[in-house]
């Protein structure tokens, strides 16, 4: 098989896979919320209401596409696309498994192993803010603008601790490539701890997961779309599939962030204390590593749902205060200690 064909298959596969997870997530969110809130949730469409996302999709597609009269037409259409695209694109560098041997050819389970994967991820994370600010601005609605502004301030503030937390990880593993970081997390150190990021960077992990919630606009950081304050925030004026893209992009975002948490801090496809490659065949190992990776991802996806239905929402100034007064100093301290420890041990 040609290399480009393999690459194409990988692109299509991971694209469809992420799409599928995002679709299922909308169902998990609603059923999970019902479980937590002591009610039933959608259970009519298909078994356990599993076809509910499909019904929602059909509904959104067939709704009238309304563009407000005074909206900036082009920007208004561009907003949702700008929001959803970066979320998908970030998956290009996420290693979703180790490797699989098919027909004597070793295939790495990652769309593209670029050596600056870390920078790519951070850069694309910053791109999402354009979708929100453009959508909020183009809507010509005060609630939308407020939501867009809140979101912009929040995303920009929280990118700093996110980047700093990840920087400490790259210091430890000595590479910008996500695949190499993942590979380095096999085995144990000090005899007992798996070589995972969470054990080497406990503070960094907490910083990363908090900023991930802020980046994903999820409770307790869901101010950009706080419905009790500014109706729906930046997507107040959106309807039909444009709204669908925003909502969908959010779930793809969750999926990406969960995958990054797993890659950086939870040993990617590695199981603790067990080396799967040692006793599994080349094909089954590939599949097993893929499954292990997504099992971990699904745990973090569930965590997003769990937290959303448990805690209240921050206020705008509290979000900013937490970001600038707590997370950034902590991230700097974390980076400093990490650098110092590495300097002293080498």
């Amino acid at each position, binding site marked *: 098989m040609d290399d480009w064909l393999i690459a194409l298959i990988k692109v299509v596969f991971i694209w469809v896979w992420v799409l599928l997870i995002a679709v299922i997530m909308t169902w998990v969110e609603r059923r999970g919320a019902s479980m937590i809130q002591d009610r039933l949730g959608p259970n009519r469409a298909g078994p356990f209401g599993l076809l509910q996302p499909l019904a929602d999709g059909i509904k959104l597609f067939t709704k009238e596409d309304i563009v407000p009269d005074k909206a900036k037409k082009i920007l208004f259409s561009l907003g949702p696309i700008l929001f959803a695209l970066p979320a998908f694109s970030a998956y290009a560098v996420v290693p979703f498994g180790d490797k699989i041997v098919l027909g004597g050819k070793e295939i790495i389970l990652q769309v593209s192993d670029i050596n600056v994967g870390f920078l790519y991820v951070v850069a694309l994370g910053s791109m999402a803010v354009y979708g929100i600010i453009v959508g909020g601005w183009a809507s010509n609605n005060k609630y939308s603008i407020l939501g867009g502004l809140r979101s912009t301030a929040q995303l920009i503030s929280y990118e700093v601790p996110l980047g700093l937390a990840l920087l400490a990880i790259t210091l430890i593993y000595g590479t910008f490539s996500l695949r190499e970081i993942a590979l380095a997390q096999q085995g144990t150190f000090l005899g007992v701890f798996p070589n995972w990021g969470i054990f080497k960077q406990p503070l960094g992990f907490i910083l990363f997961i908090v900023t991930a919630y802020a980046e994903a606009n999820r409770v*307790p950081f869901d101010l950009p779309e706080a419905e009790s304050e500014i109706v729906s925030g930046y997507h107040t004026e959106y309807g039909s599939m444009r709204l669908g893209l925003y909502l969908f992009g959010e779930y793809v975002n969750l999926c990406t962030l969960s995958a990054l948490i797993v890659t950086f801090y939870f040993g990617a496809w590695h199981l603790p204390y067990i080396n799967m490659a040692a006793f599994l065949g080349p094909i089954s190992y590939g599949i097993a590593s893929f499954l292990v990776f997504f099992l971990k991802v699904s745990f973090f996806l569930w965590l997003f749902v769990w937290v959303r239905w*448990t805690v209240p929402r921050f206020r705008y100034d509290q979000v900013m205060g937490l970001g600038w007064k707590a997370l950034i100093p902590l991230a700097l301290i974390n980076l400093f200690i990490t650098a110092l420890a590495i300097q002293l041990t080498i």
Partner: protein
Amino acid sequence: MLEDSCLSGHSTGDYVKINIGPSHPAMHGTLRVVAWTDGETVVKADPEIGYLHRGVEKLAEAMTYHQFIPITDRLNYCSAICNNVSYEMAVEKLMGIEAPEKAQLIRVIMMELARIADHQVCVGILGVDLGAFTPFFYLIIQREEIYEIFEWYNGARLTNTFGRIGGVEADLPDDFDQRWRELRPNLIKAIDETDKLLTHNRIWMDRTIGVTTFSAEDALNWGFTGPCLRACGVKRDMRKDEPYCMYDRFDFEVPTGKHGDVFDRYMVRMREMEESIKIIDQAYKMYKELPADAPLMAKVPKAIRPPAGEVYNAIETPNGELGFFVKSDGSDKPYRLKIRPPCYMIYQAFPEMVKGEMIADLVACLSSLNVIAGELDR
């Protein structure tokens, strides 16, 4: 428009005018607040009322005394029973009669159930407005059970039309004992779970403590009553201070707060629910000691024609002091009827409370005041 006092050297163009309501997810009913904001800070909030005005007081003048009872349901629809009783007691006072003991106990039991239901909605919605969705469901599921009891009693769930002038229309259903025994632990559990999810939650505390603080003096000057006044530290409860319906014979506490902020209002309501459960227990015990054939109605003529005169009667409803002023000219319809809703006084202080706070606090403050449009606009 903004007055000069709010502008502080700025021009009007420096501020954004945001219209919150009357149709807005954060507005309970049809309230409208026009907020002038400087970024996220509220420079001035202008409440506009009257979207739910139905001319209730004028309607009363065209109705017989009994016909008006269903209209009182539509005041504070979260606890219609308290409105009914307040009105009935006003007319009874005018006629110089008193409901029999058994009727009074049934009224107490039902009113306290309504109080719990009202507080459940208020606390639940406060959570929803602050982004905590789940406690709302824990509380609302139990409120449904309370509504089941109401429905069992006279067929209505929300607009109960409870009681008649001079007593109550029916005895408690036979299986009230069993229903209350089933409901009681669930209620306590729901309150407890809400308490665990919210009270000591760091985010919840940050969002509520010190937000829209109000001093006891200001609260009294503005005419606050009910939980909002008690949250400011004033121990004023009509049930204790001017007992009616045998409230002086029950043993219960009047919870108070200290700072009059959103957190204190929340805590006062949470603890009042527990006190209400205590009152229901005692009232039901006293009810059971009465003979089964004790009268439910005082001697009241079929057509109610109170002697000419006027009367004001107020009771402690979940939101505060709900008063009815009734003036009779001796005919079968009130000559004039005036309602003193607790929300009206409390809502007047709203612009004062939220000035300089953030938009999110405005919403939190409104929820914690529990302004009900039906009662506010009448």
